[in-house]
């Protein structure tokens, strides 16, 4: 007996994916695909909501967590929150894409199809509680990503991006599954629940550790953390910007879902093993990302390195808490808070970048200089999102940083204090390059080859306006009342109540 209510979102999404494909067959107006897709996304949100508040609903029975397929597919608070996040991100990503695709000769139908497929994969990952499902979901996220990265077919940069992304991705994937095979070999199971309770004899085997290492390192590819971060800047720069937006939010978050599930659901009891690993990865990622970002002159590339650094910030709580053997729940919650807020502000940032790029036809900072003159409104938003990424109150970003700091300080050991101090220094460095963008757009003068008059006449595409409006409101609201996010993450991290 299958709990259909539990997998209703997936079913709806699956239908939507096919529907989009079908629309593309029957209609000329390509953006219909987008509409169908968005309708589907809305529809998928409904059961997620009903599942969340099931207890309060008359017609609804059963309570979280709902286990399916012998515990390899679980719908719990955490997976619901994540699914909601994915769908929201995809929604914004589509909004960002429409105008972009219209602006040039692109295959549209397939585009939406692939985007939604990737989303579907991510949603599956959120619920998967064994490696098979997880891997399938992962590939479902990656595969479309490879293709979308190369969507600007005529553009060499785009091709190059696709190929790089692909090759690195495949290696990482191979590493990951290698790890999985080793784990399977040593422990005889690939169910997270069983791995969590693997006997000491197994755990002490070096092979187990090796397998675990491979799995984690394999995941670093998706979240673009050291050591598999190398693709990030090139792919961000080469891919169509809306795709970059999706990669930097949807696909990255999917990667983190993998991290969270594996770390906290499969290996909570071995935290002392993977804690130090993630501690190192976090520090390496944030430091490297921030330092290199300082030198960037291309906004998208800069955002690429920023996303590496942010990955480091998100990993920090893992490392600190696990290494110190402290309560994992808080670290878990902190990462989720960070993911939610990061998704909002990063999508917003990309929204502005796309809107601006649509005018200057360039992502070089020098060409954006004096943007204030030809797009005051956009510039304000740009400043707002970038400052939010830098974590300046009262913009949402500050709370993400706060959660991260509090999770690291909270573990009350040098693992936490040291990484907190390093993160603090990093957040100062981070401000340097975020403010660099603000500086050149607000303070500098318009370069000669740019004609403010002409640019200021181009108006914003309605879809972009919607996307920016949503993200802006969210960034401001969450900045002033971050309690909402706090509660959401509490809700999500209930599943860890008692584990440490």
């Amino acid at each position, binding site marked *: 007996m299958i709990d259909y209510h539990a997998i209703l979102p997936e079913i709806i999404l699956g239908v939507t994916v096919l529907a989009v494909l079908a629309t593309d067959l029957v209609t000329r107006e390509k953006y219909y695909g987008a509409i169908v897709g968005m309708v589907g996304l809305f529809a998928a949100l409904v059961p997620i909501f009903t599942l969340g508040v099931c207890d309060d609903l008359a017609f609804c029975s059963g309570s979280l967590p709902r286990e399916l397929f012998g515990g390899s597919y679980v719908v719990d608070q955490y997976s619901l929150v994540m699914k909601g996040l994915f769908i929201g991100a995809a929604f914004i990503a589509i909004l960002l894409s429409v105008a972009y695709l219209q602006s040039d000769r692109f295959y549209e139908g397939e585009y939406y199809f692939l985007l939604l497929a990737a989303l579907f994969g991510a949603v599956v990952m959120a619920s998967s509680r064994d490696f098979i499902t997880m891997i399938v979901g992962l590939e479902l996220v990656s595969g479309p990503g490879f293709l979308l990265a190369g969507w600007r077919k005529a553009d060499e940069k785009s091709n190059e991006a696709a190929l790089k992304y692909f090759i690195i991705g495949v290696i990482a994937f191979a590493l990951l599954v290698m790890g999985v095979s080793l784990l399977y070999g040593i422990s005889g199971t690939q169910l997270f629940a069983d791995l969590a309770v693997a006997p000491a004899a197994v755990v002490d085997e070096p092979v187990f550790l090796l397998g675990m290492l*491979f799995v984690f390192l394999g995941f670093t590819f998706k979240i673009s953390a050291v050591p*598999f971060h190398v693709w990030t800047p090139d792919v961000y720069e080469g891919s169509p910007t809306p795709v970059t937006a999706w990669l930097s939010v949807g696909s990255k978050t999917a990667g983190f879902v993998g991290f969270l599930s594996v770390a906290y659901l499969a290996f909570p009891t071995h935290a002392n093993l993977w804690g130090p690993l993630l501690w190192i990865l976090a520090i390496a990622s944030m430091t490297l990302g921030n330092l290199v970002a300082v030198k960037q002159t291309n906004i998208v590339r800069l955002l690429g390195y920023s996303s590496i650094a942010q990955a480091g910030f998100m990993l920090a709580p893992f490392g600190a808490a696990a290494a110190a053997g402290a309560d994992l729940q808080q670290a878990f919650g902190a990462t989720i808070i960070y993911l939610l807020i990061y998704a909002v502000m990063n999508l917003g940032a990309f929204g502005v970048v796309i809107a601006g790029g649509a005018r200057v036809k360039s992502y070089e900072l020098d060409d954006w200089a004096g943007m204030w003159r030809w797009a005051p409104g956009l510039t304000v938003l740009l400043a707002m999102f970038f400052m939010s990424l830098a974590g300046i109150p009262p913009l949402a970003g500050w709370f993400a940083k706060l959660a991260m700091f509090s999770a690291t300080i909270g573990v009350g050991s040098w693992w936490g204090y040291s990484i907190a101090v390093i993160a603090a220094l990093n957040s100062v460095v981070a401000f*340097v390059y975020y403010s660099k963008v603000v500086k050149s757009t607000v303070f500098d003068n318009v370069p000669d080859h740019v004609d403010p008059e002409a640019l200021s006449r181009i108006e914003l595409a309605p879809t972009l306006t919607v996307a920016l409006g949503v993200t802006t409101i969210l960034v401001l609201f969450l900045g002033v009342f971050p309690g909402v996010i706090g509660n959401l993450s509490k809700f999500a991290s209930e599943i860890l109540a008692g584990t440490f």
Partner: protein
Amino acid sequence: MLASLTPLVTRFAFLSEESGHEVHAGDGGALAQWAWLIVVVPVVITFLIVFFGKKSPLKGWGMATFGMAFVAVYGAVLAWVNLQEGILYEGAIEIGKIGPFALQWGWVVDGLSIMMYFLVGVVGFLVFVYAKGYMKGDVRYTWFFASFSLFAGGMLVLVSAPNLIQLIVGWELVGVSSYLLIAHYWEDFDNVDAGNKAFMTNKVADVGLFIGAIIMALSAGSFQFSEIFEKMLSGQTSLAQFGFWAGLALFIGAMGKSAQFPFHVWLPDAMAGPTPVSALMHAATMVTAGIYLVARLFPFYQLPEFAGNVNAIIAIIGAITLFFMGLLALTQDDIKKVLAYSTVSQLGYMMAAMGVGAYSAGLFHLFTHAFFKSLLFLGAGSVIHAVHSNNMSDMGGLRKYMPATFWTFMIGTGALVGLFPFAGFWSKDEIIASGYHTASVDPTFAAWFMVILSIGGAFITAFYMARAVSLTFFGDYTGHAHPHESPKVMTLPLMGLAAFAAFAGFLNVPGVTDVFIRWVTVRAFPIVEHHAEGLNWPLVFIVTPIVLVALTVGFWLFRPKETQAERDAFTIPVLYPLFEHKFYIDDFYMDGIIRPTMGPLADGTLWIDMNIVDAVPNLAGGAAKHVAAAVNTVDQNVVDGVFNTASAGTGATGGFLRKALTGRVQQYAAMSFAGVVIIAALFMIF
């Protein structure tokens, strides 16, 4: 000694054991309760002049003079009542609490303050009147009177102060108004510099005042003089422990305002201001603030348990000042500078008197000096007014042209050099006598030093005054302008002051009248001092001849001569240049302290700030950029980098790998995988 001084809980009369007479005191009634008007009126008038002066008919002069007249009259009335029954009153309003301390504005009405009210009022009034004529047609006529009555206000704030805070406030207010008035003609930087010099010198001395006040207040737990004294006498204060330092610090403050050596440097330069200013502030009143401070704290300086042993220092400093600064007057050609150094020297007398415990004598000299010195200054002013020059070499023979000025100047001179029966004779004689008494009672070095130098001082005073008078009024006129007698508005004040200079002395003839002593000893706290029953005739017969000799020698040496050459003929080889350069003290301050501070030290600090302190963040920034660049390169083509260098060295592996890893993607992959291997190795090993 402490034993003999019973603390007076009721602020009332007491018996001063040495001098037998009794001082009664009432609380002065309404008269004293409204005495705050004395302070407030001039202050208010200052603001009135600032805002409405230009529009008012008399351009502010009227208001200012009215204010001073008011003070003079009120002061006179108070003085009279004080003489009859004595007044001891203290009123205050609270202006805030800070921790345990209450901050107050208040007004003291007792012998000392009344004397000062009267002095400031009368001299001030006369000088203001004189100024109407002298400042006629001045560019900043109104502004002048505004600052002038600001000064008066400040001075009165000072003398009416019942607590240290208010004293400091008044102290600095007169300081700033003096700055404004000295720099009155600020188009010329010399005057501005003179003003700055005065301000800065006083500011330096004020460090002493501040610290002294702080020590006193904190160890006694109050700013109120009365409270401090009570605690002192009843011994409930840790003040004794710091007594010496507090006393010294406060005395340093006093040295600043009263231009005692080595803080005297500002006073002569202060003559850059208009002459009435010099007369009122830099002769009669402001410069006496230091004396006033010591007098106000007299009980404190009396008791050996507290600042008793500062007295010696005070006496010696005073003596040095009165003698050596007098010497400097000898070489000045600027008549105002002569008077300025003379002032410094006379202030030395007063301070020295305080040092040997001659409270009344010192104040008496302060009192008389105020009249005759302002008289002399105004006289000099009237001369300058006539000949449009400060230099005595442009004068001479003026007695014919301006008799009124001449005769009043003569009276002033008589008083200054201490000729019988002019005021100076009595006051100076009493100082010397009291000094002699102290020296004979307990023969300390300080006391004898003071006595001898003050006798010597008498000689010098007479000597330079003889020179000044001779060069100014005798011989033939050598100037270029056409000298003429000054208008009534200027000569009348001269005469008024001359009257005081002539007769003020009779207020206190030892053994005959003790009016003045009865005034100023009306204090809430015991003033223990010796009051002679009669003139000390031996001293009179020593000093007066000395003065006469000095006068004659002076007149003879500087008798009218035909040519400039002859005038310069008389110079004493070694001393003359020494005096000429004011003992090189000013030069030392300028080249030894100020220039180094404003030059190397300040510039050095700024340099350090910009190049060292600020270097840290800047370098951090620079470093961050470079590191970023480095990491960037590594991150982008580490493999290139690594293997270029490797192959550049021993080519084998490097070269091979270099050929192997061709594509950028593959370098990326290699990097990542290297990372994996490293981490894996790390974790496998540990």
